[in-house]
């Protein structure tokens, strides 16, 4: 039962992170190492707003996500946009950005471990297992966001533009899609997803300035397993890895230390056996 709950929650968190990461990679070919750093910043935002300032937790959630998204956009305009043509430089810039955010958080909040109170207290029991309402809330929010995202991508004009751009940038340009504007919008969505992940998962986690590193690795494994740029793939792979992680943590002694290596092993195996991932397009087809 614990495995099931943890698996579901980890999976849904990974899904949000990985989809955001996939989106911006697909549309703008930006490998955003700082993606999970934004997730950390959001978690700290909510810590600051709801614990230090004592604001209403739901209001703090809203402010935190907005703040992180705006930060993301500003950083994109100032740092990434001028070097967009050089993919390597962009990659390095995002690594630097992640470390920069980590240092800023370290300065502001020190390296102490922090925790956020549950937004709704209480729990109920099924068959002797405790399920906290907070866990339900987190899972529920994630599901709603995923559904909204699916609707956005599959049923709106913006979504169609994003999907076409993700598949073939040059052709999409030639069909009149404004690439730089679309990249901005996608970046905003992507960072907002990282922010949302941070605020809904924050209360279930211990906060520290290095908390972005673990999910980064696992998120990369998810994206590779699901197939680079495939949103459906990210979704499925997120739950596969979420459950794998839960199984490892609960069934293997000292498993908590092994979840990173296990994710990496999965990533390497995928790259060896099926480099395009579960739902990816083989690289030969891309030009």
């Amino acid at each position, binding site marked *: 039962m614990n495995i099931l709950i943890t698996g579901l929650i980890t999976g849904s968190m990974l899904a949000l992170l990985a989809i955001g990461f996939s989106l911006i990679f697909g549309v703008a070919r930006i490998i955003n190492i700082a993606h999970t750093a934004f997730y950390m910043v959001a978690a700290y935002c909510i810590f600051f707003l709801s614990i230090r300032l004592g604001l209403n937790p739901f209001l703090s959630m809203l402010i935190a996500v907005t703040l992180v998204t705006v930060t993301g956009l500003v950083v994109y305009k100032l740092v990434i946009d001028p070097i967009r043509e050089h993919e390597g430089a962009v990659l390095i810039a995002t690594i630097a950005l992640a470390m920069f955010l980590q240092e800023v958080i370290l300065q502001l909040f020190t390296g102490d471990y922090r925790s956020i109170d549950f937004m709704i207290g209480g729990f109920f029991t099924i068959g002797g297992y405790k399920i906290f309402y907070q866990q339900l809330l987190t899972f529920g929010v994630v599901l709603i966001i995923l559904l909204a995202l699916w609707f956005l991508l599959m*049923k*709106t*004009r913006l979504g*169609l*533009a994003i*999907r*076409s751009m993700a*598949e*073939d940038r*040059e*052709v*999409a*340009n*030639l*069909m*009149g*899609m*404004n*690439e730089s504007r679309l990249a901005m919008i996608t970046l905003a969505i992507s960072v907002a997803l990282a922010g949302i992940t941070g605020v809904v998962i924050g209360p279930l986690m211990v906060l520290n300035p290095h908390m972005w590193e673990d999910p980064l690795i696992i998120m990369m494994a998810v994206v590779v397993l699901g197939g680079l740029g495939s949103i459906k793939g990210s979704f499925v792979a997120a739950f596969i890895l979420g459950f794998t992680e839960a199984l490892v943590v609960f069934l293997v002694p000292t498993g908590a230390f092994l979840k990173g290596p296990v994710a990496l092993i999965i990533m390497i195996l995928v790259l060896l056996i099926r480099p395009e991932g579960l739902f990816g*397009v083989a690289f030969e*087809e891309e*030009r």
Partner: protein
Amino acid sequence: MAEPLLKVEAVSKSFGGLKAVNDVSFRMEQKEVLGLIGPNGAGKTTLLRLLTGILKPDSGSVQFKGKELVGRNIWNIVNLGVACTFQNMRPFRRLPIIANVMVSCLSPRSHGKGEWIKKVETKAMDALEFAGISDMALEKASVLSQGDLKRLEVARAIASDPELLLLDEPFGGLSPAETDLMAKSIRRLHKGGRFGRLHSEGPAMIIVEHKLQQLMKIVDRIIVLNFGTLLAEGAPEEIVNNPQVIEAYLGKGGDQ
């Protein structure tokens, strides 16, 4: 005297030491259909890519309805009314066929902003119907045959409601029957009318093609490229009898 639709002046483009397009100039009138021919490697596709903004010319200017295209973004040029198809088709393979065409309809040019997706879908369906593949609208683009992919390319291009349509080898890889169908579509498109909801009049076209017999029936005028330079320009009958052109295609005095 009316402004020409397209004015290409002294356009050049080199790749390394190779002059792919060298000092090419020509003009096009409204609704004119222009054939662009030349031996392999003559720079035809490069020239088209310069017109659409995929490539930036090293020098020269391209004016469309009096507006300079050089230096504009690709999507900007599309929104002015220039659309193209690809020689080797590049559909969005993971999207349904209808969605492939809908992407074209999203450009600010072909719709009023804020239009609902349903209306976009109707427009795309019109374009598919015109191209003759509307019955497969919901399939993934990856299932289409070579000929149908060509039709999809055309549907996508006309869905952006262009005034100048650039077709790169529309008959390439098609069977004789498919070629006939495509030629008919192009002629019908040029006349407009049938595709009336999007076009009051057919667009002007530049068609790159190797199947000269078919091409001759469609075009008003032909320009010939050879080694990146403009070799000849004129009515189809003149071109086929032009000794320089024959030489460029067949080599001097056979294969001695």
